[in-house]
């Protein structure tokens, strides 16, 4: 009890210095939490990719289309369960800042290959029946307050013109890693209009989504699919959805790696800042620590005194930082275009890591001042002039 009081009094000796150090740690922990959140969100979107789904895309780039006719051919490969396909539609819903994925899909099969999109059977049946129907992710429906039966109008860009869709279903995410921010509608509906307006683009498919029975055969099946279209005008590249997801954000990948590293650099830097504060404090108190030793206080007591102060500062900074991280991450989520990350939340492990980092900062920052204090002989301590 007495010791805690002394630790507190020591920490408050240079109030400004202590407050600045705490603020520094707070900011570092917030930056750490934010960076880690972006990293884990990215990681989990890759993790969300299914292992028994393959993506077949144009070999050169996924921005080039594949012919519709490939569907039956891919189906013929042994081990393939279901073949579905999708097209990036783009377009603008009301305002161009309303960012969420809009895709023209094969209504018949899309929910078979995406079992993590949970939809009521009646809704799915209606969706399949009506050509201008669409299905919305629960998150988007909630965000724009759209109900079943509403009409959503998209202003096309890749597919010019005005497009009206009737909402016939809302799908729910199976787990927190499921992206429930997509809008799905009939590829056939889009394609019919293309046949009339831009016949050269009719029959274009963005990529095929291939469900396979055995994820262990993914490599063999991928090779067999690609072999089908060797030397054709549209060669394919087939890979697991996971590999596709990683490739899709290949550019971001470097940034993510940098963020990952940075989150740890920040912890390292703030560790040095606190260590510096603690070393300064220990220097100033050289005589006092000599007094403590003279009075018979032991290594254990002095270690506790210095470590306690260091931990008090780091845990206070860390705690405030963690408390601020939640609203700041929420604010960050508001600020970035909706749907840019399908899901955005602070993983518990991020909080645990931030707290762990704060504790580690406190311990490591105390090492040098403790060492210095214990090493200094009493007589040297009394002769010391700051």
């Amino acid at each position, binding site marked *: 009890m*007495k010791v805690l009081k*002394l630790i507190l*009094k*020591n920490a*408050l*000796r240079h109030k400004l210095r202590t407050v600045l150090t705490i603020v520094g740690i707070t900011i570092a922990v917030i930056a750490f939490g934010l960076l880690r959140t972006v990293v884990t969100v990215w990681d989990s979107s890759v993790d969300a990719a299914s292992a028994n789904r393959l993506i077949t895309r144009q070999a050169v780039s996924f921005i080039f289309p594949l012919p519709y006719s490939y569907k039956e051919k891919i189906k013929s490969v042994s081990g393939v369960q279901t073949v579905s396909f999708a097209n990036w539609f783009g377009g603008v819903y009301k305002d161009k800042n309303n960012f969420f994925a809009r895709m023209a899909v094969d209504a018949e099969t899309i929910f078979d290959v995406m079992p993590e999109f949970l939809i009521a059977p009646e809704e799915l049946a209606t969706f399949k029946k009506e050509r201008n129907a669409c299905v919305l992710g629960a998150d988007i429906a909630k965000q724009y307050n759209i109900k079943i039966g509403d009409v959503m109008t998209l202003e096309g860009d890749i597919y010019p013109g005005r497009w009206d869709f009737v909402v016939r279903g809302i799908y729910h995410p199976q787990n927190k890693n499921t992206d429930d921010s997509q809008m799905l509608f009939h590829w056939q509906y889009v394609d019919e209009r293309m046949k009339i307006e831009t016949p050269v683009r009719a029959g274009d498919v963005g990529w095929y989504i291939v469900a396979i029975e055995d994820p262990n055969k993914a490599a063999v099946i991928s090779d067999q699919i690609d072999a089908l279209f060797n030397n054709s005008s549209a060669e394919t590249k087939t890979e697991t959805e996971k590999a596709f997801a990683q490739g899709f954000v290949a550019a971001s990948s470097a940034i993510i790696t940098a963020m990952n590293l940075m989150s740890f650099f920040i912890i390292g830097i703030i560790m040095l800042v606190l260590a510096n504060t603690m070393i300064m404090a220990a220097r100033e108190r050289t*005589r*006092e620590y000599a*007094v*403590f*030793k*003279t*009075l*018979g*206080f*032991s*290594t254990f007591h002095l270690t506790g005194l210095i470590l306690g102060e260091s931990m008090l500062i780091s845990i206070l900074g860390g705690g405030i930082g963690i408390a601020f991280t939640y609203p700041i991450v929420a604010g960050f989520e508001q600020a970035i275009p909706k749907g840019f990350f399908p899901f955005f939340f602070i993983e518990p492990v991020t909080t645990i890591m931030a707290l762990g980092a704060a504790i580690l900062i406190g311990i490591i920052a105390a090492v040098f001042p403790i060492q210095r204090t214990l090493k200094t*002989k*009493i*007589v040297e301590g*009394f002769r010391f002039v700051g």
Partner: protein
Amino acid sequence: MSELIQVQNVSKSYWRDSFEIPVLSNLSLNVKQGEFMALMGPSGSGKTTLLNLIAGIDKPSSGRVVVADTEISNLGESALAKWRANNVGFVFQFYNLIPVLTAFENVELPLLLTKLSKAERKKHVETVLGIVGLGSHIQHYPKQLSGGQEQRVAIARAVVTDPVLLVADEPTGDLDKNSAAEILTLLERLNKEFNKTILMVTHDPHAAERARIVRHLEKGDLVGV
């Protein structure tokens, strides 16, 4: 009276890089239980060094130091720390109080190492602060006290554990004449009424007068009586 302090053939050198700085050479000194001895001598003659050896905060290069029946020159670091806590009270020229602690808390500090309860500690602290005449300044911080008052708090801290030996290194060196006189009167009282053995280093002849015996240290040797 029996001997409380026996310093036998003690030498002490310091090392600065590879240079040996001899401070005390083959010095012997006995101090009886209940003595009040003043140690005088020019600056750099080794007074503080000798005091530190006797009080167990430094170790001789050779020779024996026996205090209160313990050969302290043989003790290890932590045994010595315990021995100091039980046997010696320290008074320094610059008081060396902990600035963030009140007078009460400063005096209580050595008692935190004992098994005394909070109530018992309080009783002890208030008693000694009363003896040094600071009963009404219990909650004051060092910077709210005068130099003389600070030194009295330091003396209270030195005697609160009831040690047999009190060492004081120039306890009046930083004080004006009146405050110095008060401190010396207090030390005399502790010696006479409470039977503390006191070893005091001083430059001040007035201070030395109060002691019962004066020894002079010159270039590491004790001279005269």
